[in-house]
């Protein structure tokens, strides 16, 4: 397996080695070693929970800087619908699109527009025969990676349709090539304005099998601060917004599934909730469900860690922006079939960190873990650098740490030592007393 490029990283100088991120990581990918957090890249799913909870801002999202705009002759902005929810008192998306042009982009291709196409393809896809139901949305890259590492049996349920950002990148590039035949492919830069680090990982790791159509990934927050000053200078923007209610609604949890027009759906958001749903779906059958939308962030994409606004305020703003938009202007008169270019290969199961590739060896290690666990206090305090006593026992057996790191165990050792020392002192005092008499 090639090395997975992550978009969540650590500023070692700021990390104090506390246990906030350790305890919050849903895949137990973090350990504290030598007083600093250490992320296991095989286990990390780029959900950004550690960025959210770090009190010292030591965990950060990695994305491309605005300066990368200078690397391309023809620059296309691909704004995530979440961007629209960041602005106070905004009643017209045209201001954002005009602002992006004024900021230096040659073209703007709304991801919300591509989202409408994906919604239409999803409806068509659900009509196919012999599909393994419920079909799970492939839009949130955290969920896709979570399923591929942990839910082998659900890989087949993940919809093999490209997420809107990828479709937007492809269509935007084709449009640019058609309108500007003088441009070389390398002159065109597609810049996704992303709410979260997971989408950065998606692009950098070529999720879709081949190279992504997105070249650089900017953060909503970086773009926001620059864009807002350009937007303030606009009196009346050019009419240019092409997205409808359906596309813009993708920013909010439930937006994608409600627009599939099929009431047999489930939408869950927040990584802990999502895990519980996946565990349950994995264990039983749900004939009543056709479609499942899962978002790693609370509230959906508006809850991403690379945004500015409070997710619930952003959600309220998106709702009011949606009010006067047409329903789905990009799918009028569409042909009722899913084009090949939006299909991707079936998701592959990629197990992470088995104890050993040899079953006998793995069984022996598991037995050792059980033995060690008996002596651990089950406090899950995290002082040893592992999130739970169970994880600590596993780390010991894997040879990554030693039992002395357990403070409860060491306290007992210390008490025993003191007790022995005191007994010896008393014994010696008694001896001296006897010698004197």
């Amino acid at each position, binding site marked *: 397996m090639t090395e997975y490029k992550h978009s969540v990283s650590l500023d070692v100088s700021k990390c104090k080695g506390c246990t906030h991120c350790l305890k919050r990581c849903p895949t137990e990918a973090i350990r504290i070693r030598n007083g600093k957090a250490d992320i296991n890249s095989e286990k990390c799913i780029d959900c950004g929970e550690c960025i959210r909870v770090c009190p010292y801002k030591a965990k950060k999202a990695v994305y491309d800087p605005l300066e990368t705009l200078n690397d391309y002759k023809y620059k296309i902005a691909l704004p995530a619908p979440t961007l629209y929810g960041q602005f106070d008192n905004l009643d017209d998306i045209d201001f954002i699109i005009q602002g992006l042009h004024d900021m230096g982009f040659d073209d703007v291709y709304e991801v919300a527009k591509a989202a409408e196409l994906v919604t239409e393809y999803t409806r068509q896809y659900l009509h196919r025969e012999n599909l393994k139901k419920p079909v799970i949305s492939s839009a949130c890259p955290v969920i896709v990676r979570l399923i591929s590492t*942990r839910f*082998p*049996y659900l890989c087949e349920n993940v919809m093999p349709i490209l997420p809107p950002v990828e479709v937007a990148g492809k269509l935007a590039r084709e449009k640019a090539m058609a309108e500007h035949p003088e441009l070389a492919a390398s002159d065109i830069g597609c810049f996704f304005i992303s709410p979260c680090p997971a989408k950065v990982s998606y692009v950098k790791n070529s999720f879709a099998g081949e190279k992504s159509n997105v070249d650089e990934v900017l953060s909503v927050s970086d773009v926001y601060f620059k864009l807002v000053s350009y937007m303030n200078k606009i009196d009346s923007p050019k009419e240019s917004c092409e997205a409808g209610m359906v596309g813009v609604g993708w920013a909010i949890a439930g937006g994608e599934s409600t627009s599939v027009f099929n009431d047999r759906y489930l939408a869950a958001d927040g990584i802990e909730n999502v895990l519980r749903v996946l*565990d*349950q779906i*994995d*264990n*039983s059958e749900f004939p009543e469900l056709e479609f499942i939308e899962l978002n790693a962030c609370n509230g959906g994409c508006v809850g991403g860690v690379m945004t500015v606004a409070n997710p619930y305020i952003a959600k309220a703003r998106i709702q009011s922006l949606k009010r006067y938009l047409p329903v789905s202007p990009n799918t009028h008169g569409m042909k009722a079939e899913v084009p090949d270019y939006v299909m991707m290969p079936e998701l592959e*199961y990629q*197990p992470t*960190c*088995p*104890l*050993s*590739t040899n*079953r*006998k060896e*793995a*069984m*022996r290690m*598991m*037995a050792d873990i*059980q033995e060690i666990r008996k002596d651990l206090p089950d406090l899950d305090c995290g002082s040893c650098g592992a999130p739970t006593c169970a994880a600590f026992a*596993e780390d010991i057996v894997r040879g990554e740490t030693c039992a002395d790191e357990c403070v409860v165990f060491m306290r007992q050792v210390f008490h025993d030592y003191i007790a022995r020392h005191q007994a010896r002192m008393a014994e010696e005092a008694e001896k001296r007393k006897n010698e004197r008499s």
Partner: protein
Amino acid sequence: MSDEMIRFHFDVDGDDFSSAGAASVEVKKRLRQLGFSPDVIRRVAIAMYEGEINMVIHADGGTVEVEIGDDDITMILSDHGPGIANVELAMQEGYSTARDNIRSLGFGAGMGLPNMKKYTDDMKIETEIGVGTTVIMKVNV
């Protein structure tokens, strides 16, 4: 019995519906770490999940022992519930004695025991009215 055998013990809490299925999730995690195939993991997880739910609905909880051997995985689910009056009837799809309040939660569809049988290679039920029930299931590796 080979010395490679590993045993896990779980207590299933009868008061708490929301935690039913927790032991199954835990076993799934350990089987993954041991490198079992997705198919084996799923069969064990489903059979155990159904068993856990049954113990919560009918028997006020119980215990689960999971034994992982070289050739098979054995699950022993024991409870001190009311026992099963007619095992043959209980094995029929759609037959359930669950009360309405349980059904309103989406359980009690009468698929628990049939599914446990369907997903395992061997299943034995030992039951005595007023004493309790033990279900022993095996999944071949």
